[in-house]
């Protein structure tokens, strides 16, 4: 754990605006745990000259990605400059230790005022324990306007618990749902192709040709991130693998079987790049950047990594190839945002903590983060124009605009299936990715492997139904068309 204390820097126009915003945000609000009339009632906070903030807060965060330590310190320095008398102390924990560290801090009565909760599961846990403060006092027209329209609905935002706003996002909501088909334009051109594959048949034909022509040093594809490839054939073929139109486990769905079969056949024919079976997360973009891999299904963040390794590479970004019979589904958006920042309900200085939360959710902060790291942040207005001017980022946005649909999320809808959903989703034994891998690597039928997991999921449903007889109906959204956005 690393701790840094506040430092001071010169004023800027931006910091003055930030300060004014923070003061305005707190002055007009019924602040959590604080009095309306006498700010000195709120712990160590005290009204400064002209009603400004003062005091000290602690922010527990994760220095991720590389360079984040310096970035956050600089940002909170700006916050301090805008609010003279305010000190922001930063505690840094490694990503994989953050939640345990927060837990220990709260147990010892030394919880931070503001913290990174790292996602939905931990937010739910912390909320259930009463450690997370509601942030509804932040919500006004100005705040809502920072985020995409309609994305702060309690049943779909991902930031609400029991109808209360309890978290603020960092990255763009669709960043994690956007899945790309990356291709090397130069390799494709050398093999006589001027466009990426649009269907599975085209993909197989192109990959086979490239591997055959590659002479053992260039390969057509590698079956990394197979679930991204499958999601165009079946939107619920991931943990816990329940078809939300029927409420039944559906990992052995014929569409999924067919999509796994595509990769299994490529593997059996020696088309896939050998060695992918033991790659770590960074290896696909390394091989791609080295010009040894022509195409692969990818997450958004790979694009920037490829550019770092090979700035001049011919990088093409496209949608996933579709089944020859046409699209069956889209990438399933299960929440509008990913919860990252939360405020402690035990903060001794809630006014100041709330102001810090407002700062972390400000357009200026989101813009600075985007400019520093190139990640799309939660406030689209902070970066959208700039992103359109960048060919790679525009490509990502184009795919996101066409390839994602909102799906029902039994956990957020809070109709009673939350416990089952969390249990099934967190059970490693029900992870269908292992079945994909086994089928492709060992050249065995996928269907019986998936059917075995379906049986386990069904058993879990039956187990939960003993205490929740309505579980099946809570998992069934018969009116939802997977080709359309779900609306509650």
């Amino acid at each position, binding site marked *: 754990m690393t701790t840094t204390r506040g430092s001071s820097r010169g004023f800027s126009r931006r910091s003055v605006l930030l300060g004014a915003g923070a003061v305005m945000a707190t002055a007009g609000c019924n602040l959590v745990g604080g009095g309306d009339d006498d700010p000195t009632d709120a712990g160590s906070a005290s009204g400064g000259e002209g009603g400004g903030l003062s005091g000290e807060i602690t922010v527990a965060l994760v220095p991720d990605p590389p360079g984040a330590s310096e970035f956050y310190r600089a940002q909170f320095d700006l916050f301090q400059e805008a609010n003279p008398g305010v000190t922001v102390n930063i505690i840094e924990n490694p990503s994989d230790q953050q939640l345990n560290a927060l837990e220990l801090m709260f147990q010892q009565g030394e919880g931070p005022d503001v913290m990174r909760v790292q996602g939905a599961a931990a937010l739910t846990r912390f909320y259930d324990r009463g450690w997370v403060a509601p942030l509804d006092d932040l919500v006004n027209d100005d705040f809502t306007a920072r985020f995409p329209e309609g994305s702060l609905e309690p049943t779909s935002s991902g930031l609400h618990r029991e109808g209360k706003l309890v978290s603020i996002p960092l990255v763009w909501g669709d960043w994690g749902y956007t899945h790309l088909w990356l291709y090397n334009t130069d390799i494709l051109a050398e093999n006589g192709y001027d466009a990426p594959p649009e269907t599975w048949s085209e993909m197989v034909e192109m990959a086979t040709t490239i591997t055959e022509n590659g002479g053992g040093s260039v390969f057509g594809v590698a079956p990394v991130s197979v679930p991204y490839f499958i999601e165009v054939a079946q939107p619920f073929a991931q943990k816990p693998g329940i078809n939300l139109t029927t409420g039944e486990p559906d990992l052995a769905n014929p569409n999924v079987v067919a999509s796994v079969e595509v990769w299994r056949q490529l593997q059996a024919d020696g088309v896939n790049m050998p060695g992918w079976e033991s790659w770590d997360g960074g290896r696909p973009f390394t091989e791609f950047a080295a010009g040894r891999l022509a195409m692969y299904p990818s997450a958004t963040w790979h694009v920037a990594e490829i550019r770092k390794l090979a700035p001049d590479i011919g990088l093409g970004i496209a949608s996933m190839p579709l089944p020859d019979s046409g699209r069956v589904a889209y990438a399933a958006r299960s929440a509008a945002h990913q919860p990252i920042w939360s405020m402690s309900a035990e903060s001794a200085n809630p006014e100041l903590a709330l102001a810090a939360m407002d700062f972390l959710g400000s357009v200026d902060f989101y813009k600075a983060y985007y400019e520093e790291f190139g990640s799309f942040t939660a406030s689209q207005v902070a970066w959208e124009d700039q992103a359109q001017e960048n060919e790679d980022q525009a490509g990502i946005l184009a795919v996101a605009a066409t390839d994602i649909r909102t799906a029902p999320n039994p956990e957020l809808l809070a109709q009673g299936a939350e416990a089952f959903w969390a249990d099934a989703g967190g059970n490693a034994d029900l992870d269908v990715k292992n079945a994909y891998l086994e089928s492709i*690597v060992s050249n065995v039928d996928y269907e019986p492997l998936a059917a075995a997991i379906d049986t386990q999921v069904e058993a879990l449903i039956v187990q939960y139904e003993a205490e929740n007889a309505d579980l099946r109906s809570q998992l069934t959204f018969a009116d939802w068309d997977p080709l359309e956005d779900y609306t509650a």
Partner: protein
Amino acid sequence: MTTAAITAPSKPGAPSKTRARRQAVLWGWLFLVPLVVLFTAFSLWPIVASWAYAFFDWDGVGPPEVFVGLDNFREALNSSSFWNAFWNSFLFSLGALFIELPAALCLAMLLNNVLLRGRNIYRLAIFLPVVSTTAVIGLVIAVLLAPVGGVVNEVLLGIGLVDRPVNFLGDPNVALPTLVVVDIWKGFGITLIYWLAALQTVPKDLYEAAKLDGAGARQQLANITIPVIMPIAVVVLLLTFQRSLNTFDLVQAVTGGGPIFSTDVLPTYIYRYAFDASIAAPRYGFACAVGVIFGVFTLIITLLQGPLLAGRLKRTAA
């Protein structure tokens, strides 16, 4: 007078000796305190705590509250993936016991020969992998063994030993033997040092006497070297067995237990359930139960070796 002269000095001397002895004991305990505290905090307490946590459904966050009795143990023992990892761990040990131990003994005898020039350099070269960082070794091994552009495959293809690259780490049938070989290579140096230490306990005059009696090299090995080093061999065997059974860093660094769990060993299995960030809900309770089972099995296997080796020792002594 004489008596008084004899006894008088002894009276003040007795309490002084006792006090000195007490002080020595006190100092002894005082010096032991740091060890006891550290051992209790970092060895004893984790062992006891893991036994306790094994009976809870606990995600590692907050106090364990959901008591599940023996459910975690039952789940592990009924899990095919647990037994897969257990068997793989055992294979690492078999490799160490039946390949590494005898091979290291043979090489140690060679390097123990004073007539061999540059033997210290050979010893150093063989010991280097032991002190090298496993993560670095893993990285280098992955590069060397890569099917595309890997040096090993280039050589194999170049000399015509294979007609297509061997997928050393990606083929489920080849990955585990590959890692066993790498593990043997990495641990070979330490076993070699054990054997060298053992060999240097053999009195040279025994060999000289045997030579005078006309004993050849094979007879000297069978009747002098092996019997004399046998007590140390028991320790070497147990140490090597324990080390190889707990292989974790190499597997985690090179394959992470993959592909499709073909190289999964119990330490990586435990790690996955307890710490893998890709699993939404860590299962510390279950991981502790697996750790307890693993510990008990290790203890049993180790204890089984004890009487066998003791019997061997007795026969050797007779």
